[in-house]
């Protein structure tokens, strides 16, 4: 964190999500999938959102942009972006923000590009729509963007269909589209999950590089804690639709406090592990949306759980000693007070 904050970055919040709750209309009535999430992203900051599959990472980001499918709805909370509440905007205002001020990079580059449209045209689309560019201007900019994301021979690539590019190239194209209008915030939803490891590293380096060049904020959603260690400034750990821990990245790795975070970090295999040692894992599975426990959602799997954990839901609170390290755990908070 200390290194990250040394660079000149204002602490003004660009994105501020408060108490966001998302429910699915299921057969057995509404089920909470995102439960009162609190998140913020400062200007120029890169936030990593980490959690296992199905913990509501993607839903949270889609709900910010009001891109949720029909039966999934935001029921509570607010999300303000650059001082405006995204949930209260008219559709027209929202469309200006989408793709204009907030760029989105999706998980699967294989299916997130229109298969019957040349990539040049797809990159031009937001430029023509948001920036009112002429086709010719937009194409100049598209070439520039393709060069920026490291695609060789950008002039020829404009004419290519998505199926003519490899997965890594397509993800670069997606990033180029996300960056087309110089967004203030780039939301990348597991952008490397569908790619192989060497390409993952390339994409991470690319985004790191672009962030430095363009000075935007980035939200990087992932389930891979190790991947983003060198990329993000701050990490929010999600579990079952709530933020359980939120800390600067160095602080989180050095002193993980929530039992879930510790479990996650412990389950990353290390080269120094004894060859025959068992991989560490967290027992059990996350609660299903309709069957959340009454208390802390992690309590049933938590090795430290006490009686109170099964009764009440802990709030995300700063732990002493570090100003912006927040944890939602009764046991940790109690230990802090005792210390």
């Amino acid at each position, binding site marked *: 964190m200390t290194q990250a904050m040394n660079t000149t970055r204002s602490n003004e919040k660009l994105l501020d999500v408060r108490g966001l709750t998302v429910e699915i209309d299921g057969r057995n009535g509404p089920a909470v999938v995102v439960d009162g999430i609190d998140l913020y992203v400062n200007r120029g900051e890169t936030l990593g959102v980490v959690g296992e599959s199905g913990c509501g990472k993607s839903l949270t980001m*889609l709900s910010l*942009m009001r*891109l949720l*499918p*029909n039966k999934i709805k935001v029921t509570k909370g607010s999300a303000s972006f650059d001082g405006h509440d995204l949930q209260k905007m008219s559709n027209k205002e*929202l*469309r*200006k*923000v*989408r*793709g*204009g001020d907030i760029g*989105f990079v*999706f*998980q*699967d580059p294989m*299916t*997130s*590009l*229109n*298969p*019957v*449209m*040349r990539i*040049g045209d797809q990159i031009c*689309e*937001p430029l023509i*729509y*948001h920036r009112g560019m002429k086709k*010719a201007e937009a*194409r*100049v*900019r598209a*070439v*520039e*963007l393709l060069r*920026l994301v490291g695609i060789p021979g950008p*002039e020829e690539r*404009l*004419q290519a*269909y998505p*199926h003519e590019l490899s997965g890594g190239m397509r993800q670069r194209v*997606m990033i180029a*589209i996300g*960056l087309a209008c*110089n967004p203030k915030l780039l939301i990348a939803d597991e952008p490397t999950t569908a790619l192989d490891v060497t390409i993952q590293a390339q994409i991470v380096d690319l985004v790191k590089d672009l962030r430095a*060049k*363009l*000075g935007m904020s980035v939200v990087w959603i992932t389930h891979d804690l190790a991947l983003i260690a060198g990329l993000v400034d701050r990490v929010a750990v999600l579990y079952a639709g709530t933020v359980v821990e939120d800390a600067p990245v160095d602080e989180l790795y050095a002193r993980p406090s929530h039992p879930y975070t510790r479990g996650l970090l412990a389950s990353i295999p290390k080269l120094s592990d004894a060859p025959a040692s068992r991989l560490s894992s967290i027992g059990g599975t996350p609660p299903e949306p309709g069957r959340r426990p009454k208390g802390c959602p992690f309590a049933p799997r938590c090795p430290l759980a006490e009686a109170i954990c099964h009764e009440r839901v802990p709030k995300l609170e700063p732990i002493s000693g570090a100003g912006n390290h927040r944890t939602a755990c009764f046991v940790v908070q109690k230990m802090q007070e005792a210390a």
Partner: protein
Amino acid sequence: MSAVPLSPVAIPDEAPVSLWRDAWYRLKRNKLAVFGLIVVLILAFAAIFGPYLTPFDYLSQDLQARNAAPSLQHLFGTDDLGRDVFSRVVFGTRTAFLVAVIVTVIAVFIGTVLGAIAGFFGNPFDRIIMWVTDMTMSVPNLLLVVVINASLKSPITKWMEAQYLATLNPFYRQTIWVDFMLVFGSMALISWPPYARLVRAQVLSIRSRPYITAAQALGLSNWIIMKRYVIPNALGPLIVSVSAGLGTAMVLESAFSFLGVGVNPPTPSWGNMISDGLRVWQHYPHLLAAPAAVLGLASVAFSFLGDGLNDALNPRGAK
């Protein structure tokens, strides 16, 4: 604002090849499709210009030369009234194309609009539209056409007659238009449901694809998404279906004319020519063979063309 520097670069002016040119390139390499396309083009040419080029008028009778066998003068021979069968087949092509094109255009229009609304906006539109679609499909085609013809034909003809007597405008004497209107109307009425279903299914499947969410995340409007993302992706199957549908509509029109509920004599239609020929085929087989062969050829040609288009329009299927 622009943190990314804009520098002048040499860029090819416009796409040197478009989706359609790619498709044309692939279509050209498919022999059956090219055969289909050539036959369709010849038939279309015959439909548009044929009646001006044939040596005989399709109505002029030569009672000296009834039921003549094919000869250099009469390529397909003559019928029981001594009319040149070749000229009649050519004019029949016009009838067939006119009916097929207009019916298909109407049916595709109704089907696409209803299917897209049902697929894109979901319930309650979806339920109501699909209910109407299923109901229309459950009525036997032939029965519906017979009922429409039987119930509407005579009142309309009477009304036209009255109009003629009142205005003396010769337009009202052309009962051919009544035939066409009834045929177009009733055929379009039974032909749209498959298109509606096809478009609905396409839109439903496309709507949930990630690139639609990605397009929404780009801030594009529903209209642009519909136009640039949904419809182009739904187009392949629709074009194939239209091409096959044109063939089907021709066969359907012939079937109705064959049964006497379609285009009425003396306007030549392949169907009523087949119907006339069938009665005497043992003696004058050319009267049956000529229109039947052309009808078969047209139907096969549209089918081949449709299949070829299916392969050609799918950039992923490129070999």
